[in-house]
């Protein structure tokens, strides 16, 4: 349950720090290591941005 004030997102730690990681892998590692609150802020803002871009297009 919430309240997500703390802590990085649980799960998805495997494979972190793999030197052979490609761009997608590094992005995935970065995302899973991100605080859940930042993930929510980013997702929410991306949804708003997506809506605006779709309307403009």
């Amino acid at each position, binding site marked *: *349950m*919430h*309240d*997500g*004030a*703390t*802590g990085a*997102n*649980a*799960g*998805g730690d*495997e*494979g972190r720090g*793999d030197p*052979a*990681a*490609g761009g*997608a*892998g590094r*992005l*995935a590692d970065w995302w*899973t290591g991100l*605080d*859940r*609150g*930042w*993930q*929510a*802020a*980013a*997702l*929410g*803002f991306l*949804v*708003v941005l997506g*809506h*605006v871009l779709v*309307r403009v297009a």
Partner: protein
Amino acid sequence: VTGSRSLARAARHLPGLGILAAFAVAARLAAPAGLDPLVVAVAAGAFAANTVGTPRWAEPGIGLGGLLLETGIVLLGARLALEELIAAGPVVVALVVAAVLTALLLVELAGRWAVGASEPATSLLAAGAGICGVSAVVAVAGAIDADAEDVAYAAATILLFDAVTLVAFPTLGDLLALSSRQFGVWAGLAMFSTGPVAAAGFAHSTAAGEWATVTKLARNSLIGLVAVGYSFRYAHAAADDGAGTRMGTVAMLWSQFPKFLVGFVAVAAVANAGVLSGETLSSLATVSDWLFALAFVALGFDIRLDRMRTTGMAPVALVAVSLAVVGTLSLVAVVVAL
């Protein structure tokens, strides 16, 4: 290889998300029968979790409930009328500070003098009752190095009251014929975790859900201050053996700050700047509603009766007293002030 590993990692969430989506759709379909879809969503999740349990393969996806809830709250920023919020802001903030202080002091004093609970266990319950439920328990546990057993007891107690208040508050709100704003602010002041607060608010009305969430967010934003306060309090108590705060005050304040509030404020600012069309706002509200529906099903999966049975009578009595006192005082305050 790494790309496919990333995909596999993401795919682990799909089965659980599928379950959340199926339950959320079913809850929506139940709406015409006169049932509140959000309450049905929570109840369906709780029923499944306590009968067949949560399949292991569904756990990663259902575990995304917190992220879905917070993303829904960020998008809720788009439908906030900033003018109305600013007008009511000072009163709501004053009520939030008063409610948090009352709950903290009440549980701390009652815990020591009436129940005789251990100091850390009491502080965890005070944080859980005063601020934002289980995450406040965890945040303060980190600040005071609490025992894992105390954390489990405090978290189970808060979860128990989350389940009870989720049903009791909307019923009381209807019986007392509170306005949307009064009920929303009351739920935000007196209930515990953010998910149940939002669910109870939206069960009353959309406007009540918005007020409940905003009031609760104001409460959540105090979590850093409370964690820092406890950190100093316990570091001082442990000064004899050379213990001290492990983190600077500003760093701790920031580490405990709910980061999704940054997104919520940013989206509210963009929406209130008038750059989003009516259609866009309406579409964002729909996305937010669905995210809440998914999150509330996941919230139901978190309501586990077996875990609640592990809590003792003393923590339950402490939190019940706090809820009764803060609930009553804040009810009187919102009726008078709003």
